[in-house]
């Protein structure tokens, strides 16, 4: 009969609804939850954070009571004191193994690098205008400042005279003070700044000082002094018409080596080679490479542009 079947089917529909309602309830529940999440305003969040930071009911801060915090902080204090102590002990142990006068390894610092003076504004671009003294004054100041330690009287007072052409070995006991050889700035003649306090800058014949990096125990050149050679790096060779080296040999004399370290070789002054660009093309930026030549010197390592060579530019404006 139709009525019965319709009832039955309605029932079935109903059951389904009932069922769906159950499913729906689950969904609604989840939905509600989501809404809750969405509805959580910043205020609520803030409240929650506040409650987390300080819960007045349980008297807990960030989920821990005062006692609990005390214990945990005490624990970490002790632990960290212990760890700090252990680390300090290890560092002390490390220091004990080190020789105070010579580093354990010197393989990374050799062969030596080269630097130039003047050194202004962290750069290797020497550019100035003859007409404007302010443009070259910083270079002069830098040179002058650098050469103070090479004043003849300072050198005479502190350092000894050595025999040129041979190493100045001082095989004393480790830790004993070593003597340093004199390197008087007068050796630099035109570039010494004594006759021309502007080191040639005012005349468009600037001086550049070359210094080889110090390496303890390094015997520069292995018997033959290392020689300096400056030329145009890229471009027209004729941009530099003439230049002069001081000392004229353009070498770092053997007697300044070996270096014994700053703790023993107290007044050591690095030997220098000065280069004076006596005639160069004006109003033109000239890239110049000064390289060391000698046994054991590497001057063509592509990754390190300061190893055994230095590249700088020179621009003299009129």
């Amino acid at each position, binding site marked *: 009969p139709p009525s019965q079947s319709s*009832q039955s089917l309605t029932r079935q529909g109903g059951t389904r609804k009932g*069922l769906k309602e159950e499913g729906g309830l689950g969904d609604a529940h989840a939905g509600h939850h989501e809404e809750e999440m969405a509805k959580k305003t910043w205020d609520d969040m803030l409240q929650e954070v506040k409650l987390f930071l300080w819960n007045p009911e349980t008297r807990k801060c960030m989920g821990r009571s005062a006692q609990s915090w005390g214990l945990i902080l005490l624990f970490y204090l002790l632990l*960290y004191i212990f*760890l700090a102590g252990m680390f300090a002990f290890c560092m002390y142990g490390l220091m004990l193994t080190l020789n105070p006068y010579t580093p354990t*390894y010197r393989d990374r610092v050799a062969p030596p*690098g080269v*630097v130039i003076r003047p050194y202004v504004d962290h750069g290797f671009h020497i550019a100035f205008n003859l007409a404007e003294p302010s443009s070259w004054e910083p270079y002069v100041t830098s040179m002058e400042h650098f050469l103070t330690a090479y004043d003849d009287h300072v050198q005479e007072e502190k350092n000894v005279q050595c025999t040129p052409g041979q190493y100045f070995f001082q095989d004393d006991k480790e830790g004993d003070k070593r003597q340093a050889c004199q390197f008087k700035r007068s050796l630099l003649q035109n570039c010494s700044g004594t006759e021309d306090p502007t080191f040639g800058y005012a005349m468009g014949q600037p001086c550049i000082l070359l210094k080889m990096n110090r390496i303890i125990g390094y015997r520069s050149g292995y018997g033959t002094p290392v020689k300096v050679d400056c030329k145009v790096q890229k471009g027209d060779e004729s941009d530099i018409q003439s230049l002069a080296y001081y000392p004229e040999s353009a070498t770092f004399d053997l007697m300044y080596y070996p270096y014994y370290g700053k703790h023993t070789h107290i007044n050591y002054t690095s030997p220098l080679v000065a280069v004076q660009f006596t005639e160069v093309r004006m109003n033109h930026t000239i890239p110049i490479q000064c390289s060391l030549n000698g046994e054991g010197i590497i001057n063509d390592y592509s990754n390190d542009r300061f190893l055994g060579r230095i590249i700088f530019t020179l621009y003299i404006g009129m």
Partner: protein
Amino acid sequence: LFQKRADIYSVEIHGSKDLEKVDKGDEKENYKDLKGNRKKSKKQDDLRKELDLDDHKLSNEELEEKYSTSITKGLTSAKAAEILARDGPNALTPPKSTPEIIKFLKQMVGGFSLLLWAGALLCWIAFGIQFAQGVPSARDNLYLGIVLALVVILTGIFAYYQEAKSTNIMASFSKMIPQQALVLRNAEKKEISAEELVVGDIVEVKGGDRIPADIRIIFSQGCKVDNSSLTGESEPQSRSCEFTHDNPLETKNVAFYSTTCLEGTATGIVINTGDNTIIGRIASLASGVGNEKTPIALEIEHFVHIVAGVAISIVVLFFVIAVSMHYAVLDSIIFLIGIIVANVPEGLLATVTVSLSLTAKRMSKKNCLVKNLEAVETLGSTSIICSDKTGTLTQNRMTVAHLWFDNQIFSADTSEDQECQTFDQSSGTWSALSKIVTLCNRAEFRPGQEDTPIMKRIVVGDASETALLKFSEVILNDVMGVRTRNKKVTEIPFNSTNKFQLSIHETDDPNDKRFLLVMKGAPERILERCSTIMINGKEEPLDKERAEAFQTAYMEMGGLGERVLGFCHLYLPEDEFPDTYPFDTDSMNFPTSNLCFVGLLSMIDPPRSTVPDAVSKCRSAGIKVIMVTGDHPITAKAIAKSVGIISATSETVEDIAKRLNIPVEQVNKRDAKAAVVNGMELKDMTLEQLDDILANHSEIVFARTSPQQKLIIVEGCQRQDAVVAVTGDGVNDSPALKKADIGIAMGIAGSDAAKNAADMILLDDNFASIVTGVEEGRLIFDNLKKTIAYTLTKNIAELCPFLIYIIASIPLPIGTITILFIDLGTDIIPSVALAYEKAERDIMNRKPRHKKKDRLVNEQLAVYSYLQIGLLQSLGAFLAYFTVYAEQGFLPYTLLNIRTRWEDHSNNDLEDSYGQEWTMYQRTYLQWNGYTAFFVSITIQQVADLIIRKTRRNSIFQQGLFRNKVIWVGIFSQIAIALILCYGLGSVAALNFTPLRFQYWFVAMPYAILIWVYDEFRKLFIRQYPGSWWDKNMYY
């Protein structure tokens, strides 16, 4: 028509129909519907409207009219094409899935990706600024940004690939579409693709075909269909053109899309196609049931939040510090990149995925095939298992369980591989009974199976007869021989009116010319026909007392939920029935009363032998096992009792009522631990009542439930905050399987749809396999904790260098690229190796983890890893760093505040502690040497970290240092990778590695040993003082 809507979800498959009761339920449910559930998705409303399955009630003529078709001629091609255009093809539309590109992009921004993107972006910004400024090392930042982006993209691709592997549920629904259909069109029969079928088509199906659409049968000849994929019923159902039931699913004149026609032929009118079919609706429902996030996914999200939170706070803190220390903004940005990269465990998510898939592999060896990787852990956190009975808990075959003869009940062996029966077989009654069992049986072994064990042989015949055949074969070993010696003369097969089966045989005794009449059937019917009973081999009169004994035994066996059969025989007198007597089964010209009753046999689908053990394991593991079955409550309860789902001492409300002899209503429901809930009761229950049952009974059996009711039960369990595992095999189980936290489909009995909806497939259909799965799931949760703890530890050792670098202005101890080499290089294999770690204690003796309380990454884990072990590691690594610098001439105090001069590219005569002068590149190389030393130290200490992470509570020596070989593979790989990076790739400048003096590998060793010793003490105190302050704060 709108009122007359049926729905698959309402279908009561096993329940009986009681219209009065239904009416009551109707009111209530309508009321329910009015009250709640306003928010219905449009889709569901549509579904309901279109549902008007009253076709089964219509006559053929009405049907012809309704679908404007002709039973004799079918539709015309033109009409069919018109309807096809209107309704679309007869195929299931796949659900709208998120486009693959969206899924992919989601992976690109999920997890730590956003942080890394931020890092990459900062890199490019820094590059842009530096490039504009002409800084020579600007390109480093460009490359680092590219590397970071690559890391994100690669891990994203990995995650996407993993996700894509889990198959789409619709895939198998579409696979089920029958290919061809025989259809009557233009008065001609022709084969067309089933997709072209339209409503009103007349189709013919025959045995072996899949039903091509929902069809109303108009003609049938012995047609039987297998509806198991739809309703869960395994018995073949006959289909005819009679309208037998209001319910469209129950009525015999409708056959459903995708079910199989087993035998016979049928012709029908197509009444629903494609998505409108019952299967189509279930498919859309199954895809409609939302896939909730797995517990492990939530845990990982939680963990990502913690790490990201830590990272962001440190980033903000140090940005402020850096700016207030007057660092340039650009420098500060570069610091941030390092902090981000150091803080994010780039390789961890991939490691977790790999660990899960390794466990999945291990589980598949134990017959649990995991489809969705995250389900591996879900199984471990399962707190309720809703299990099917048939096939999962039981062997899915009838087996003789008890015998009654000589006034005595005997138990038979019901195990899977029985070879002999041990009950007393000396009585004469037994030989008579065994003869009846053997002869009065039409089942036969399929030939050629002599070498197969008896229980595994394939039998032609129904379930009970198969049981009896195997039973007698086990005892007699020569059933077929006995049958040939006792030649069958005639027989009456079992039918539902007679309720007995009878056959007449010659005897195997050549001197005995009598015929033997043997009969079996429903015990009460058999007893009616008997006047004597055999006791100890002698016929004795069947008096009242003996009849009562029979009744008691029958009740007892029936009470065990077993199917009982009675057996009787009669030797026909030789004079009345000579050799040539013409037996006629129609006129029954032989006696069928006054027979001799011999005995009773009862059969049951016995539990699998491994199940009771597995159930008790579940119990000790704190997992509630709920049986959900379509079977009769008595059978269900009996099986539940025998496997321990209802323990021996528990009682149901009904049991208590019976014991105390009071009405059920008066029993205090709290007294009953167990409950057996009938599907009919369940239907009338409110949600609260169901919740009450689920919460207050620890042992629950749902009997006579439709597979659809499973969904309600699952939802009920989930309301209890439980992680629910559900087993199922039918198509209509798929919504429940999807709804469950972990759906487990049966590999043998399961339909494709169920397998697709499930997260896991039980290859052997065995409940015990679930338990081994649970064990693996719990183990992987523990091991993931270890993996994460291991991975997080070194993050501090990677972070501290940046912090010290900013604060103390020392040369940078470790580079960003180097960090990536730790996170994605040396650490990957060891952290995966932790997944192979064995359980520390019996993990099956503790409660399932609480979803919200027992987190994967808790405060203790983070704090212990970050602030204790991580810090120790940093100290060890810094010791190596300072050693390398000091031995090259830069003593620690010189390094302080050296950063600006150190990083000045124009400063090429930087003086060290000894007065030597360094060029920029020489310093940079030394810095890389420092990176390498720092890297190596972290690696060495990570070896110690790896070893301590093997256990969380036990001493390493209890756990065994060498039991997990994979850990050692991890350690060796770690060291090997470090060696290769250091000495093999040390000359590749871009990687920032340099060869390292051999002794520096050992500088951090004391710290590595300290880590181990410290952790051993931690574990010792945890074991010694459980519940103490130490335990609470140090156990993660």
